[in-house]
């Protein structure tokens, strides 16, 4: 392509110089152009467009094929070249396989049957809708060289922060210098003034005559002692009360979990619903610790995080890929299938009500329609999960007093809601007015 373009250029310069060969050169030019066109179209037909190929690959193939690792199906890097080299199979065979692999298998094709059995007899979804051009594009994408993971250069960032640090240091240093100079100036002024005083024979007031020491004066003043004692007692009472009141309250409890799980990435960045993993919060008392098969719903295909995410992890001192490996170890996944060798993950429970208090998640989440964040705080921003609320009785009661019950579109209870509203003379019923403060509701 390049060559023909060059010749085109050469000819045009030629044409500029020698006008006699005008018709000839123009003919050559047009011939070259035609050749160029023909050549370029034949090029695309053969090699395909890897950019379009990538989008087709991602939407059609990537569910089962990775480029460099076998997944549900074999790895597809250089698949065309490998098939041609190792099996002597051409594009035609490959197209037939992609469009309808099962008919190829039924026709008794040896390699088709071999590969079908190698991957546990999982039939490949037929793709009759892919045109020759589509297949060329996809194969062009698979034939691309493997891109080495780009090392994220954080130099620019670091440089910026360093710059900020340097400028801060300069400011602080300048300030320190200024204060030093001021102090020195004061000392100097003091010294000069003293010298002046000495010279003029003015007695400088320095030593004080002996007085009763401060503490003795304080002890002698009984009123002051009394007031101080009262203040001291009140203050210590305040702190002692505060200390005893927080015994048994685990607000801010943030244990180190066996696998570093980031709610920030899962619930925040990726927007996965809380109830996706904590599905039992919909239907039962507890929100449940998700079993590992729920993790594997996604992590079957996500074995490594994106480079940007990995870079984010270094800020928290976490290697996310290593954490995913811990999950694989626990669930017994070797990259393509379960080994059956699994071990439980010893998660540490954070939110734990005392045994004498009853709490029901489904009652709050499903019936009450309370957002998870109302009690658990901004979980979608938490890199490490911690207890947001105190979970004390006062805290529960307070919410029951302030929260209005959603009585709208709840025909079954309309009558009782109306009667209760009349009884309390209110427009909006709170949980407390519906019995949300009765002892037996939570303690029995």
């Amino acid at each position, binding site marked *: 392509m390049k060559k023909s373009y060059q010749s085109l250029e050469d000819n045009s310069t030629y044409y500029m110089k020698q006008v006699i060969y005008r018709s000839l050169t123009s003919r050559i030019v047009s011939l070259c152009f035609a050749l160029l066109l023909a050549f370029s179209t034949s090029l695309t037909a053969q090699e395909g467009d890897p950019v379009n190929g990538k989008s087709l690959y991602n939407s059609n193939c990537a569910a089962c094929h990775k480029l460099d690792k076998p997944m549900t199906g074999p790895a597809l890097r250089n698949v065309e070249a490998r098939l041609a080299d190792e099996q002597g199979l051409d594009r035609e065979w490959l197209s037939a396989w992609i469009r309808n692999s099962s008919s190829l298998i039924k026709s008794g094709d040896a390699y088709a049957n071999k590969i079908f059995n190698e991957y546990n007899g999982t039939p490949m979804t037929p793709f009759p809708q892919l045109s020759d051009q589509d297949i060329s594009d996809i194969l062009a994408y698979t034939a691309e060289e493997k891109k080495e993971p780009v090392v994220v250069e954080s130099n620019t960032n670091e440089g910026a922060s360093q710059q900020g640090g340097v400028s801060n240091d300069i400011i602080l240093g300048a300030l320190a210098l200024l204060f030093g100079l001021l102090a020195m100036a004061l000392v100097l002024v003091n010294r000069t003034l003293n010298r002046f005083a000495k010279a003029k024979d003015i007695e400088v007031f320095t030593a004080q005559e002996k007085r009763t020491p401060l503490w003795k004066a304080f002890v002698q003043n009984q009123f002051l002692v009394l007031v101080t004692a009262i203040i001291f007692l009140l203050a210590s009472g305040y702190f002692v009360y505060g200390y005893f009141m927080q015994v048994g309250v685990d607000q801010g409890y943030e*244990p180190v979990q066996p696998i570093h799980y980031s709610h920030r990435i899962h619930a925040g960045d990726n927007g996965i619903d809380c109830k996706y993993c904590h599905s039992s919060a919909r239907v039962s008392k507890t929100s449940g610790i998700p079993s590992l*098969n729920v993790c594997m719903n996604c992590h079957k295909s996500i074995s490594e995080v994106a480079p940007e995410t990995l870079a984010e992890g270094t800020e928290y001192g976490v290697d996310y890929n290593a954490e995913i490996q811990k999950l694989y170890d626990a669930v017994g996944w070797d990259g393509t299938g379960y080994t059956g060798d699994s071990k439980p993950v010893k998660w540490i429970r954070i939110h734990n009500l*005392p045994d004498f208090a009853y709490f029901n998640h489904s009652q709050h989440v499903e019936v009450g329609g309370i957002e998870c964040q109302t009690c658990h705080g901004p979980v979608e921003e938490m890199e490490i999960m911690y207890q947001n609320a105190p979970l004390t009785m006062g805290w529960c009661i307070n919410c029951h007093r302030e929260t209005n019950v959603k009585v709208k579109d709840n025909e079954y209870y309309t009558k009782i809601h109306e009667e209760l509203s009349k009884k309390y003379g209110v427009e909006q019923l709170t949980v407390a007015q519906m019995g949300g403060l009765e002892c037996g509701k939570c303690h029995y």
Partner: protein
Amino acid sequence: MHINMKIATKYIVALVLLVSFVSCQNNSRPNYQYMPNMYESVGYETYQESDAFKNGVEAQLPAEGSIPRGDFMPFEIENTNEGFAYAKANLKSPLDSLQVDYTEGKILYDIYCGICHGNKGDGKGKLVQREKILGVPSYDDVGRAITTGSIYHVIYYGKNTMGSYANQLNETERWQVVAYVEKLKADLEK
């Protein structure tokens, strides 16, 4: 000068005491409790470690062949290619037109399926858009040609990279989601 030193030491001691009190607050372990025997369950907690069983965990799998109480119907189609083909061709929803509740189906679908399959079923959920999970097909994909039975089979057992959702959705909920998926498919094919 001597007095100054003494005062200084006093202040330092007070400061050290204060700092040590504050640093005693450690968020990586739970706080003290007044009467732990009223807080901690006497019986086993759900996922507690225990010596009662060989594998050291309190939670055990149900015995082979046990079935849950309540309205439970065993799903007898197997998790094989033949089972899938059978379900695709024959399995029908037990819900009649009055029982199908698209509102509930949508709620469940958006939680469990929409994150990959997209809330419209076009295969462009948030995880796909962010290129975390790739290759999620649209429901109107010709090659797959999903049917009532195949949708249910796939929710129940999973397929290829998709996992099973049998433990997150109960039987009725699964059929509600199937109905909703069929509605999305019909909408896409319009």
